[in-house]
Every structure is written in C-alpha cells, then in structure tokens.
C-alpha cells in the first residue's frame, strides 16, 4: 500500500467494528465477483458489456460490501446503514454479485436477468434502496453530488451513516464531480468517502492522453479531502483505508487494472465494452480458477 500524507491533519483510525470478513475471504469474494461478471457476459453473448471497468473494481466492491460497510443486512438498523452510491453505473456487473454476497440481493434476483421491465438488476442500476441500490442510471458525474446529499441528510438526522461513492478516474473529467467535491470539502462532510477506481483507461484511450486528470490525489486534497492512495486490488489495504475516519471527507485513489483477472483483457482499451465469445469465456473461467487457487495456496 502506498499511502500519501498530503494532509496537515492526521487521519484518525476509526473506532470501527473489526472487519466481518478477513483478508483471504475478501480476496476470494473479489474473485467470485469477477466470476459473476463473466457469467453475465456469458448469459448475454451479444451484449458488449462494460467488462473492463467492472473487473477493475471487484476488490473495491467486495471490500466495501463485505468488509467495511454496515449494510443494513448485517443487523444495523436500516435508517442507520451506510450507503453505497455507484456513480460509474457501467460497472453494475460487479455491484450485483457484491450486493448478493452482502445479503442484499438473492441468486433469484440475479437469475431474473438484466434486461426488460421485470428485473431487479439491470445493465444500469435502478434506484431500489431495499436492495442497497441508491442511484439510477449511468450518467457519469452525478454520483458524488448525490452522495453529498445523502451525507448531508445523515448529518441533519444525527445518524452515523457513512456514504461511499465509487467513481471512475475517467469520470473525473466531468465538471459536476468537482462541484460536488467543493461542497463536500467546504462543509467538512466527514462521513463521505469518494472511492476512485483509477484504472487509467476510458472509452477513447488512456486517461493520461484523453484528458489528463493529473494527480487526482492533489486535486481532491485541494478540495478539502483527506486522501489515501492504495493498490485497488489489495483487499487488506483497501479495508484499512476505507475504514479511516476524520472530520473531513475522504478520497481513496485506488489504482487498478482495467480488465483485471483476464490476461487478454487487462489494460486493453478494447475491453472497455466488448462481447465475450466462447473461447474468451473458457479462458476467463480457467484464469479466475487459477487465481482462486493461488489465493488459497497463499493462505495456507
């Protein structure tokens, strides 16, 4: 974990309850999230799903929903639950299995599929709070402002709820992100955590070439956030920084690999959105199984 001390005020370790799920299990859950992402692609072979950005945030989703958040499915009184806003709605394929792992969706919900009117999940999320889905759609740049509003509501109600917003680094091109960041910093929304899935690629190519977002850590710091930079595939590092609390909002810059887990898709902009053919599916299943065995081997 690379941790950058950009702040004059030290971040206090939160008096959080110990992570419910230990590191090995979180790593396995992240791999299972990837497995489910691949199963969605298998089920809809003609749909160019957003595989790259779903695979890059598997650890973020698993750690948030199974390790860090008080989801409301864990006995936390519902009103006091933490909220998760998936701003990069394109990555919903990773959200659904992580919500299932947290007990907020069932296998039956997933089996009903992603298309048409009679589904619970979709290609883009539809707000449905009983399942932990707070935001609709995938129109980029809206999640942080919505998360700010949720954090403000919790403050006004005197609730300890934290609000996590998962965004992409490409998404940070949107000006609305910085309107919301200004608000969060100005109002010291300490319950807000912006998690940037910094996979370095967007539709048209590397973010550094499309519109260099520069050092996001410095930008968020300038907007009044505490900032942590982590390896977004290191579940223990993620669990640690996502549990930090201070009276300022927190930005976690999680460096990730787009297409993570599928050797043929990693860091390849073509896998931003692409159909997965039979051969790709077989290779993906084999590679994810190998990854699972490796985690287990390391655990012993």
């Amino acid at each position, binding site marked *: 974990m690379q941790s950058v001390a950009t702040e004059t005020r030290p971040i206090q370790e939160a008096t959080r309850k110990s992570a419910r799920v230990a590191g090995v299990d979180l790593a396995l859950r992240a791999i299972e999230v990837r497995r489910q992402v691949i199963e969605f692609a298998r089920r809809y072979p003609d749909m160019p799903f957003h595989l790259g950005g779903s695979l890059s945030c598997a650890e973020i989703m698993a750690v948030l929903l199974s390790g860090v958040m008080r989801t409301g499915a864990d006995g936390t009184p519902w009103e006091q639950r933490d909220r998760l806003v998936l701003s990069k709605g394109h990555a919903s394929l990773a959200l659904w299995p992580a919500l299932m792992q947290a007990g907020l969706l069932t296998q039956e919900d997933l089996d009903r599929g992603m298309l048409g009117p009679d589904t619970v999940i979709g290609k883009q999320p*539809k*707000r449905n*709070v009983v399942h932990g889905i707070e*935001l*609709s*759609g995938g*129109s980029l*740049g*809206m999640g*942080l*402002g*919505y*998360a*700010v*509003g*949720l954090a*403000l*509501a*919790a403050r*006004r*109600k005197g609730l300890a709820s934290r609000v996590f917003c998962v965004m992409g680094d490409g998404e940070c091109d949107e*000006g*609305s992100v910085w*309107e*919301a960041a*200004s*608000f969060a910093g*100005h109002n010291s929304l300490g319950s807000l955590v912006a998690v940037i899935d910094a996979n370095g690629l967007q539709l048209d190519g590397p973010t550094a070439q499309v519109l260099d977002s520069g050092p996001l850590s410095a930008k968020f710091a300038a907007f009044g956030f505490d900032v942590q930079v982590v390896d977004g595939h290191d579940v223990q590092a993620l669990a640690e920084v996502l549990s930090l609390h201070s009276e300022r909002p927190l930005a976690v810059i999680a460096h990730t690999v787009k297409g993570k887990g599928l050797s043929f898709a990693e860091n390849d902009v073509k896998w931003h959105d692409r159909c997965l053919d039979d051969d790709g599916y077989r290779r993906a299943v084999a590679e994810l199984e190998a990854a699972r065995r490796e985690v287990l081997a390391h655990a012993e």
Partner: protein
Amino acid sequence: MQSEEQRLCGLDAKVVFGETMARIAKDDSLLTVVVSDYGRRLNLDAMREELPSAFVQCGIAEQSQVEVASALANEGFHVLAPSYATFITSRVLDQVRVMLGMMRSPVVLVGLSAGCEAGALGASHMALEDLACMRTIPGMTVVCPADNVELASVLEELAAAPRPAYVRVSQYGTDACLHAQGMQRAFGKAEVLREATDGQVAILATGPLAGEAVQAADLLAREGMAASVTEFAVVKPLDTEALDALSGKRLVVTVEDHGVQGGFGSAVAEYLSGVEGAPRVLRLGMPDEYLDADTPRHLLERAGLTADGIARQVGEALA
C-alpha cells in the same frame, strides 16, 4: 383596507417565496431550500431563523444543487430548489432526467425570472425553453402561477406533498391580481376567468399573461367578439376535461411567455390533435429566436403578447 391577497400581489415574487418558506418552516421541520448562490434575493432570513438547517447553499453549481436536493428529498426532506429559471431547467436537464425523472426524487424546482422577465440581461438569462424541457420529463408536475396568491398556494401544496415538480415564476410589474378573492380552484384544475358561453373564441393562458388575456377579451368584446378566458396554472398534467369542454369553439388561442414551440400551446395542440372535430389552435408565444436584451414590456409588445397584441392576432385569425 388592503386584503392579504392584494398585499401579496403587490410584492416581488421572490419576496413572496421567502415569506411562504418562513410560514411553512413553522410547522414543517423537514422543509429544505437548496440554493445555488441565489438565496439572498429570496427573502429567506425568517425561514433560516425559524429552521437554520433548512438552508443549504451549493454555490454557483446547479448540477450539484439538483443532485444534493434529490438525495435530501429521497431521505425524506421536503425540498425546494430555486434558481434562475433557465439554469434550474435547461442547464441541468440531464440531472433532472435522472434524478427527478428516472428516480422520481420528489424535488420542487423553482424557476425564477422566467419568460422574458430577465430580458434586460439578454438571451442567456431569459427562460423561453424551460417549459419545453420540463414537460417532456415523464412524471413531472409543471406549474406556472399567474400571480403571487397562486404562487404561495402552489408552493404550500407542493411542500406539503412533494413530488417531482417545476414551478415557473415570472412577473412583469403590470400583472393583474387574478386571485384577489383567494384561491377557489383545486390544484391541477383550470380556472375560468371570463365566461363567454356562446362565443366562438376560447383564450387559454398560463402564467402572468393570463391577466393580459382577460384584458384582450375585454377589447374583443368591444369589437363584438365574445371570448372566454381560462387559466391553466398546471401545464402538466394538463386539465384535459377543461379542453374537452371547448369542443364547440371555432378558435382556441393559447397565450404564454414562453417560446411558441414546445410549451403550453404545444401541450394544448398535442391534446387537441387527438380530438375529432377539435377547434383550430392559434398559439401565441415568444418567437423562435434568441432575442436581444430589452425591457420585458418591450419584448412582450414585440411578440404580440400584451392585451392589444393578443386581441389583434385573434381578430386577424377570425377575419
């Protein structure tokens, strides 16, 4: 002695907004007004004194304003989000689509200085497309009060029962106080301001130009043409029963301080296009162009939206 209604009609609409918020805040601790650096003119000091947490300042950032307002509304607060009409509608149209449309967040957007009220500031500040933008969002309630009595009543109605809504506020200083006797109609219902049972012409108006429409009917009566005047404060959902009642008319005239395409007149024409034997529709509104800065009165005169202009165009249509 001046009645409360007459007092309200003599005030700036923005002052009435603040007075109304202060009154609501006394009984409703969930009231929330989310602003984007347009709070000082809204007379909100009394509300803030009553309920300090009701005031949320976003700075000049309307996208954030709509997002923050929507989350607060979905967490149970009764949220109004006022700003310049063009900025709280067309500038944030995608936020409104997602947050108020798809997510049905019960936020009341309030568009101030709508129509050509901000004409002195030029085309960038006039809101002549806002109705068109807002009424195409599924599930939106769209309201154009004709005077401050109606404005206060509409704000109270929507704060008490929040829903995805847009309240369009325009005022020209010469407007009639059409509700000097208080509000008589139920929310959502059109209100007949001038009867003309046997007349061939029905004038339908939304917003403060309803007063000009009444004066136009007076002018037409002097020429021997009887015209009824009906005010439609609620543009969506449209009171179609009131439109069905126009079946025997020769001419329906719509009047609005909005672009002639996409607004109230278009809504009326869309409905009547599906009614067999429906009357012909003459749509009066602002021209299909961006206008140079001028006083609101001059802009309305040039667009033919004063009493004289309305009467003249009705006469020409029947000639």
